[in-house]
């Protein structure tokens, strides 16, 4: 008998395929979803206060991928608690909230606001957004800043804390170890890469924000590599993200050392992507005579 359940820290998920932040809204919008296939959902990233987002154009298609500069448009914590958490409380899979801030203390404050709200089962800390306090650096590429944010959140909640890593670093293992030591329960790898596309007619960038986050199949080999590097560096589970559209893509991440995966951009293309990936993994496990995703080989050679 093949079972699809996986465990991430203290959180038991009925399957290894999760919906990635920013590509699934608040979970109420996606049509034709087969919810049985969804292990968990990570909601669109929010800040403590409402944010307007960037001016259009916000997205551009690129070879096998897309650039987005949404600017973390969102309703803020109070509206999230009022409008969405009560719905999530009735759902049969956990919802984690992707949290953002301009300082470590703001992340902590947001986690404290959301802690204990029925319907919220955990946090995914997004440390890839521009950092005002640190003078324009990213929290995500400075191990001390990344650890400080993780610690600030860890202190203010007893819920699972996942930290979503940026690929824009020279050594992802260093950041991974820093946030593990600061109390993260799991890592998510990776967020989008920064990219740019130029409109030659207009002689300027296609995105109003100039740069955007690259996602989709174009980033998958890099994402598999970075998730693998992160998994080699830590003892906590790593959730693989980046360009997954089919079961084979997800299986690459699992064999590279991940405990679960998130599917993002692919749901724009195929509203049934999550179910397709889930069912394909189940079929693969069955064909190989494996009992669960945890029985897959893990390619994690130690240095």
């Amino acid at each position, binding site marked *: 008998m093949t079972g699809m359940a996986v465990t991430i820290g203290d959180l038991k998920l009925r399957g290894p395929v999760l919906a990635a932040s920013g590509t699934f809204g608040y979970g109420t919008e996606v049509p034709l979803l087969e919810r049985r296939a969804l292990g968990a959902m990570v909601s669109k990233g929010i800040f403590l206060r409402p944010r307007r987002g960037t001016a*259009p154009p916000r997205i551009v298609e690129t070879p096998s991928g897309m650039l987005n500069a949404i600017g973390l448009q969102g309703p803020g914590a109070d509206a999230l608690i009022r409008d969405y958490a009560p719905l999530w409380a009735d759902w049969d899979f956990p919802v984690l909230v992707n949290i953002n801030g301009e300082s470590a203390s703001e992340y902590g404050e947001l986690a404290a606001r959301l802690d204990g709200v029925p319907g919220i089962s955990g946090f995914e800390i997004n440390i890839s957004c521009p950092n005002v306090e640190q003078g324009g650096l990213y929290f995500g590429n400075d191990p001390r800043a990344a650890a400080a944010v993780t610690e600030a959140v860890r202190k203010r909640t007893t819920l699972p804390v996942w930290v979503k890593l940026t690929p824009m670093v020279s050594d992802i293992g260093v950041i991974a170890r820093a946030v593990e030591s600061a109390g993260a329960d799991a890592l998510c790898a990776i967020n989008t890469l920064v990219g740019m596309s130029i409109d030659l007619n207009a002689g300027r960038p296609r995105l109003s924000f100039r740069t955007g986050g690259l996602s989709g199949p174009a980033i998958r080999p890099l994402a598999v590599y970075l998730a693998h590097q992160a998994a080699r560096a830590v003892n906590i589970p790593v959730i693989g993200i980046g360009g997954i559209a089919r079961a084979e893509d997800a299986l690459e991440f699992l064999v590279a050392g991940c405990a679960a995966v998130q599917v993002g951009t692919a749901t724009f293309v195929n509203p049934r992507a999550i179910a397709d990936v889930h069912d394909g993994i189940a079929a693969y496990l069955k064909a190989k005579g494996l009992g669960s995703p945890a029985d897959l080989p893990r390619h994690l050679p130690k240095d």
Partner: protein
Amino acid sequence: MERGWGGEARLLVFLVDARIAGKRRVAREMWVLAMDAPEIAASVRAGQFVNLGWTPGPLLRRPFSVYRVDDDRIEIVLKAVGAGTAQLLDMDRGDRVSCLGPLGRGFDLGAGPRSIVLVSGGLGVAPMPLAAREATALGMRVTWVHGARSREELCTESGGDEVIWATDDGSQGLAGTAVAAAPDADLVLACGPNPMLAAAADRWPDALVAVETYMGCGTGVCLGCAVPLKRGGYDRACKEGPVYRAADIDWTALPAHLPYAVTA
């Protein structure tokens, strides 16, 4: 209406593996593609769109207004403005296209108006045949004003009680834009390039206009299709739109260069 699993009431959306059933030319470089999509044909309203995907094709789906409906078939009108539309036009009868829809909110014609004017420029004809049909069914008197750069580029398929043509070069109908050529009416609908819609907004603040934006998902999750609003902030063309009250949009902040209806 279906109860969504989020507890939210929502319109039904279908994913149809649609067969291309026909293709005809309606103006210079402008084509109508027909595809078999019975569920969508049965439920689509004027101003709603479908998101099309195909293999091999671009990564993201491409949004197209539903042009006409005929039994189990839906039609779209298009020009090759980029790689994706060029691929679509290369397809043959029998080829398959993945068709997601109907999406967005269409024109709400209400019950009040007795006369309606449909103003379209270039590819902005796209939502008008369905609008003419719905308005006629509601007992309205329908005037359709359609403009293009020249006679060759003018799609002359039309509907309603009265038709007015306009061309920039005067080669057919009135010389000038469709907005200038249109009479007033109880209700005005407009579709065309965003700058044309901005001009329509100046003349008819209450007009209902269908705008064009870049779209990622077409279903309301990515926030890529932001429409800047006069009252501040953005909403989603694919969910709250693509039809808006003209005066509600901040036209200075809406990108004007998109190719939906390159002319007019």
